[in-house]
């Protein structure tokens, strides 16, 4: 993949940043048309420019004109580098890493926006829209068919709508903040300009010890909508569509990749343009409690500029920015800090604990069918059903709770909780019970406790109905006897929902 790096020549970038393949265009902000010559057949574009000095719409148009995906153009704010050539080189490397990790967009990702400064001239004459990258749902990964509607509840703009087994997305209503991306427990919602893979690539580049050796580095997440720069020595910016999308996992994971310190900078002073300050502040609150509990409070800074402590040796973590990366990151932090994980109850906890009341649960399997991450599983072997829970896969999304038909009886509860014991235990059996098998095909009919409950509710006057329901599975109940399937051996099959 050919990535063109073009830096504005005003002010002249330091010589150390001008590596092979980097082009300097004088006064690029005022003459984006000059991108064409410098880009010369590139697949991706990284531009270093001054914030607020350029028209994003014009840059995107230039990219399109030369066959480059406009939503994949990486912009480096030159103010972040200051006069330090080493910083600019690190920022360029991170921009290139992000550009390489960009996998492309389609027209459905391009959300129309208008320039912030609208003048009479551009409204009447050459008004050109600019585009933000909007999320899309991958239908093959989406768990809406199982009842998940995490995005519907999370979107502050109500852009997602539950439509009976699927979720509809209204791009016009979306103000791309990314909250849905990091909320989706199935990893089905992606924004091509801010994927976990891009973030990880960017962080590895920002924290690469080969650039500026010996420098302890801090990572500061901040909103891409503002013009705020991060130029404090040792601190590097990661701009996101909105800081509300940054989960505690995203915030703290850079500590495992070689960052000495991390910070999250909500738009608190000016106010979040989307009104999502509360989410960012809650994330900070949780992260603060966690690092204090681990005895490493100094790793979470309140602002760039604070001294950056020496980083830990990087800890390998599988998919730290993925939807179920929370448990692995917590485990990594515990190892790196050589501390014991504290037990914390918090709304922004990246992991959860599902509590099942064995006296009320009927082993119907509705919670396991709804669980988008596989934290809850129902397995059936021979004549026994078992509900198990793996805390490491639970994101606390809460989709299991409303699906429970015995919710009023208190069969299920969710705690958004960091529970060291549950995470350390691994998958555990929650409840085990008998399964009644179909008299015709041998498949599972339902669990014993569920049929007991059904018998009690139907009462003695419906004994015949209960007999029909409890002796055959739903498929065989619908078929005339002559068309019943041959008896089959099933194991580990889910109980069909009644």
């Amino acid at each position, binding site marked *: 993949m050919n990535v063109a790096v073009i830096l504005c020549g005003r002010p002249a970038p330091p010589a150390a940043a001008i590596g092979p393949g980097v082009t300097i265009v004088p006064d690029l902000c005022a003459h984006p048309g000059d991108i064409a010559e410098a880009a010369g057949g590139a697949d991706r574009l990284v531009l270093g420019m001054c914030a607020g000095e350029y028209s994003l719409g014009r840059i995107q*148009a230039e990219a*399109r004109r030369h066959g480059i995906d406009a939503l994949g153009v990486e912009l480096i704010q030159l103010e972040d580098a200051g006069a330090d050539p080493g910083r600019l080189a690190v920022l360029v490397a991170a921009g290139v890493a992000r550009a390489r990790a960009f996998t492309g967009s389609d027209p459905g990702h*391009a*959300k129309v926006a*208008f320039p912030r400064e*609208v003048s009479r001239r551009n409204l009447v*004459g*050459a008004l050109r829209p600019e585009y933000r990258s909007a999320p899309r749902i991958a239908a093959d990964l989406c768990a809406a068919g199982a009842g998940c509607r995490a995005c519907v509840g999370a979107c502050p703009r109500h852009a997602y709508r539950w439509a009976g087994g699927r979720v509809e997305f209204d791009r016009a209503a979306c103000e791309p903040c990314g909250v849905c991306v990091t909320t989706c427990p199935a990893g089905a919602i992606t924004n091509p300009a801010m994927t976990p893979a891009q973030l990880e690539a960017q962080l590895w580049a920002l924290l690469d010890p080969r650039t500026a050796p010996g420098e302890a580095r801090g990572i500061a997440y901040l909103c891409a909508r503002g013009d705020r720069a991060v130029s404090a020595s040792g601190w590097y910016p990661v701009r996101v569509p909105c800081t509300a999308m940054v989960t505690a996992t995203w915030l703290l994971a850079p500590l495992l990749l070689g960052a000495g310190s991390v910070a999250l900078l909500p738009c608190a002073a000016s106010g979040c343009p989307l009104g999502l300050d509360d989410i960012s502040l809650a994330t900070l609150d949780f992260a603060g409690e966690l690092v204090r509990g681990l005895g490493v409070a100094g790793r979470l800074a309140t602002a760039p500029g604070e001294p950056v402590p020496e980083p830990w040796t990087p800890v390998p973590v599988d998919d730290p920015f993925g939807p179920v990366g929370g448990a692995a990151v917590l485990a990594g932090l515990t190892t790196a800090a050589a501390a014991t994980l504290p037990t914390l109850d918090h709304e922004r906890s990246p992991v959860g604990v599902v509590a099942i009341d064995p006296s009320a649960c009927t082993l119907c399997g509705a919670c396991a069918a709804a669980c988008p991450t596989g934290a809850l599983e129902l397995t059936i072997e021979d004549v026994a059903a078992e509900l198990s829970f793996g805390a490491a896969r639970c994101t606390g999304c809460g989709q299991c709770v409303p699906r429970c038909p015995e919710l009023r009886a208190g069969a299920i509860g969710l705690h958004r909780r960091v529970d060291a014991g549950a995470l350390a235990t691994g998958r555990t059996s929650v409840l085990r019970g008998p399964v009644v098998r179909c008299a015709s095909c041998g498949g599972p009919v339902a669990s014993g406790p569920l049929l007991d409950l059904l018998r009690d509710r139907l009462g003695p006057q419906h004994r015949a109905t209960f007999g029909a329901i409890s002796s055959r599975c739903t498929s065989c109940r619908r078929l005339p006897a002559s068309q019943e399937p041959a008896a089959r051996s099933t194991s580990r099959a889910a109980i069909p929902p009644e």
Partner: protein
Amino acid sequence: MARLRQGLYRFCAGALLPPSPARVAALRAAAQLIDEQDVDAFAFAPAWRGLRATLETLPHAEALAAEHVRLFQATSGRALCPPVESFYLGSARHAAAATSAMSVEAAYRRHGLRFAPGQAYLADEAAPQLELLAHLCGVEAAARERGDAAAAARTAAEQLAFLDGHLARWFPIFAAGVRAATKHGFYRALVELADAFVGHDRELAAGLAAERLPA
């Protein structure tokens, strides 16, 4: 921008009509005029380039006409993807067709348009709906050219209302049907463009309708 949108709506309307050598020539001429405007400023530019490529290498009009009948001609009763609103919206087809056609015709009348005598369109077909939007973009462009931003914003609001009430509701379903029915060629490229453009224009019209000039 409004002139470009007017041209694109008109182009898409014409391209969905039954093809003839004269119509194909007219489409090529219209495409050249659109090329002279800044299409690259818009996210649907790659789809436009895709359509331009197929337009240059079109088979003769008879082959295109056969594909048009196969895909679109609802009157045959066996069309794969009739470009008609009432086919896609509503479960009671006949009632939906009548309601939809009346509603669309009312919108045409409200904007001073009516079908020419002897026309062969259904009232809620794609081509006249696209033509109406082309007309409204023309009105908006004229308002902008005389510096009347308030009138331009009002017209953008009318575009938005028509898109929300009609074209943008069913066109994506129609486009998905065409994509499934034809894997390549002119009509595939046409719906790729038109679907991207209509979705884009709905958002754009919403933005333009809400625009206020600085004092």
